[in-house]
């Protein structure tokens, strides 16, 4: 009997495998909420099913939206059709069950940016009270090619198809069953796809956080509906700062060098952001590599504070948190310590031309601020051009610092009025967009050390930034020639190989890197599947430890508890236990690195202040979900399904009547009440 049951179970799983083909590589679009709106995509709780149709031509679009006889359709969208007009028509139609977008370079338009035309317009420094003629991009439209798709709310699931083999499976299913023959409609059975991406949160952050709190207080089985976007900023300084002494640091005048750490796109955790973010990160890391040795030998009077801000795409999460901490005296320095600021924006597409220095015209109306900024520009003026006094700042972390105090500062970028990046915050902003190209015939290892043009360009920018930071910190000009960024380091970091590499740097510290530097804001809840690439925060933290740290001879337990030793200072440094370089026979010798690299929490102050509807701070949260998957199968027509159900019900009721009439009547005395109750309970339980 048991064996029979086991046999049945084996049979039943293989029947499921015969019906459904599960798609493994799924890249969904998820729902995000802020104080007033929800954006992203939602599916129904038991998935959205639709008949497959490949959208290749205009006639396909008409078929899907009006003339096709088997709605709703699950659209397989070619790259060329993924634009605002087509997606809006799909959104307004009731015949579309979902969209799967083919992500490839064939058919890609000249530009595609799903971000808005004016990034972060409500949380920057320009508002009604500060530079009102420059607010809301009245002065300059920074992202004119933006179509705003990432900020629309879709009621059907949208998935991305990145795996070419999987796309082939879908196309084959479509060609075998769903293709139109001689203009007539295809016949059942048809190939259908079901997408599951049910999001728990609705309406906006205020509602979602209220419901989460209600669940936690009163429900037996609490469910969290959404999480605030949070991660860590990475910071370091040329002179170590005492991490336990918060508030104003005595006798410290600090020059801040900043850049952003994150990117985003329409889909979840897909953000190559090569020109948008990686160019800035790599430049700042190379700057630190160039500057650090000289600042140890001939230290300038001012301290230089390097900071990588996380979450800048979502209304400046990281920078607003750091400014908030500084104002609350909850950080190692405060606003009085800050002398000036230099931010590195998008610097990758320079192509031999100069860089542009953006400054804020409103704060420069003040004479003292104006002279300081002009001085800063003078130090950078070797390779870069100053801009007209009427142009506002581009979207940058420096805007949040300006909101708190009018400090002198500059933002370096490769664009004058609007972005040169034609794929800003999209999946196509990858190494190819940065023009990282290798000559043919190189092995992956050779590609890792080859100095591409892009690497050389970024290294030049890094050298410029390093030298001007040194001068800005009050260093002497005679040391400037020793400050040069190494293009090899830059080419390591921008390598585009797809295999995991063991990178051996000059300080014999080895890191394993998965080199497609996919940037995303990582989250703190456990049920979401972890992304396959290492979080960029860790990557930057360890590279900084490598570049600025010293190797010590502490043991592992000493490394984890350095306060026990009198020579080590946990307040000034952090200690990392790292695996060493792979030696010839494959073994590694781990050791302890001491560096002044720290992480600081990057979560919006709105969540600390519990102002979920805040207008001043970022209120972005991401919804939770249970499962995200996709599968394809063949469907029969509606009439056939209905007929099957009716026949099944008929057979079951006939069997019941037969059994009742034969068995029950002979064993029980007929009482009207009994029959009534039995019938009542029977129908209840159905």
């Amino acid at each position, binding site marked *: 009997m048991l064996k029979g049951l086991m046999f049945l179970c084996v049979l039943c799983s293989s029947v499921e495998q015969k019906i459904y083909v599960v798609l493994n590589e799924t890249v969904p679009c998820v729902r995000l909420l802020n104080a007033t709106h929800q954006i992203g995509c939602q599916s129904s*709780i038991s998935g959205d099913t639709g008949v497959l149709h490949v959208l290749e031509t205009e006639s396909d679009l008409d078929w899907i939206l009006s003339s096709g006889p088997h709605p709703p359709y699950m659209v397989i969208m070619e790259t060329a059709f993924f634009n605002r007009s087509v997606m809006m028509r799909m959104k307004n139609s009731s015949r579309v069950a979902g969209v799967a977008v083919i992500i490839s370079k064939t058919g890609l338009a000249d530009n595609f940016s799903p971000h808005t035309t004016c990034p972060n317009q409500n949380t920057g420094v320009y508002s009604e009270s500060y530079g009102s003629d420059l607010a809301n991009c009245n002065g300059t439209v920074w992202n004119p090619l933006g179509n705003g798709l990432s900020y629309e709310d879709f009621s059907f699931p949208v998935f991305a198809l990145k795996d070419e083999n999987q796309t082939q499976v879908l196309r084959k299913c479509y060609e075998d069953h769903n293709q139109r023959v001689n203009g007539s409609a295809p016949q059942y059975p048809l190939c259908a796809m079901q997408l599951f991406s049910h*999001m728990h949160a609705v309406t906006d952050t205020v509602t979602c956080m209220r419901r989460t*709190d209600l669940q*936690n207080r009163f429900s037996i089985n609490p469910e969290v509906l959404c999480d605030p976007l949070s991660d860590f900023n990475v910071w370091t300084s040329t002179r170590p700062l005492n991490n336990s002494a918060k508030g104003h640091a005595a006798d410290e005048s600090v020059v801040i060098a900043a850049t952003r750490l994150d990117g985003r796109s329409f889909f979840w955790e897909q953000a190559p952001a090569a020109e948008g973010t990686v160019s800035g990160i790599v430049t700042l890391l190379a700057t630190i590599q160039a500057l650090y040795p000289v600042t140890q030998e001939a230290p300038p009077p001012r301290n230089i504070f390097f900071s990588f801000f996380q979450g800048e795409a979502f209304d400046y999460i990281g920078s607003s948190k750091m400014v908030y901490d500084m104002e609350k005296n909850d950080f190692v320095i405060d606003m009085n310590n800050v002398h000036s600021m230099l931010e590195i924006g998008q610097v990758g597409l320079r192509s031999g031309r100069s860089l542009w220095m953006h400054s804020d015209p409103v704060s420069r109306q003040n004479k003292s601020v104006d002279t300081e900024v002009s001085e800063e520009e003078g130090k950078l003026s070797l390779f870069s051009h100053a801009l007209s006094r009427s142009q506002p700042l581009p979207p940058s972390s420096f805007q949040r610092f300006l909101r708190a105090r009018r400090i002198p500062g500059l933002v370096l970028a490769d664009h004058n009025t609007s972005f040169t990046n034609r794929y800003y915050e999209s999946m196509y902003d990858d190494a190819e967009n940065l023009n990282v190209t290798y000559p043919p015939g190189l092995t992956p290892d050779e590609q890792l050390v080859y100095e591409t043009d892009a690497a050389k360009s970024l290294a030049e920018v890094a050298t410029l930034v390093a030298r001007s930071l040194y001068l800005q910190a009050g260093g002497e000009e005679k040391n400037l020639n020793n400050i040069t960024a190494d293009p090899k380091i830059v080419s390591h970091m921008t390598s585009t190989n797809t295999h995991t590499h063991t990178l051996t740097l000059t300080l014999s510290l080895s890191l394993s890197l998965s080199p497609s530097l996919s940037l995303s804001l990582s989250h703190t809840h456990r049920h979401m599947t972890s992304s396959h690439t290492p979080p960029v925060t860790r990557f930057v933290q360890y590279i900084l430890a490598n570049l600025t740290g010293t190797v010590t001879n502490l043991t592992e337990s000493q490394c984890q508890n350095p306060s026990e030793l009198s020579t080590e200072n946990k307040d000034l440094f952090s200690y990392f236990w790292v695996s060493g370089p792979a030696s010839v026979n494959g073994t590694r010798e781990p050791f302890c690195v001491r560096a002044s690299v720290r992480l600081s929490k990057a979560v919006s102050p709105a969540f600390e202040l*519990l102002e979920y509807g805040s207008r001043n701070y970022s209120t972005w949260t991401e919804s939770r979900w249970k499962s995200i998957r996709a599968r394809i199968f063949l469907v029969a027509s509606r009439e056939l399904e209905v007929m099957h159900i009716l026949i099944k019900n008929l057979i079951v009721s006939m069997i019941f009547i037969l059994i009742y009439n034969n068995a029950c009547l002979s064993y029980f005395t007929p009482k009207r009440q009994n029959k009534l109750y039995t019938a009542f309970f029977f129908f209840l339980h159905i």
Partner: protein
Amino acid sequence: MITIIPISLQQSCRVAVLFCLGRWQQCCSILISSVGYLCMDLSRVFFTGNSTMNLERMPNEEKLSLCRRYYLGGFAFLPFLWLVNVLWFFKEAFLKPAYTEQPQIKSYIKKSALGLILWVAVLTTWITIFQHFRARWGEVGDYLSFTIPLGTA
């Protein structure tokens, strides 16, 4: 980030009232359905002493007392008792030849039916309003709800 919100006394009173109102709705519905069933079975055992309900063999005084008990019990927010009352004693009250206790049973049945119709009307109205407007009520709707559906407003 799950934190208990520290709220003011006035707001917490409001929350408590709305919460209790919401829970009372749930209690009522659970009570109505479960006690209704329970009474149907238990009353047989309790009142008649045997487990099968057989109204034909009961003396008329017992029928009247049973009817009265069910009628009175229905006032404790248990409209199911009234429904059972109507179903059991309808034939007794209106379709059997007259006997002494029948007018009283008739009056009880009529009153039970009236009460039942009132309950059905009130519940239907409230349920319709709640289901339609819960999302629009925002905070109040959330506090009145026992389980809030995921993913839809």
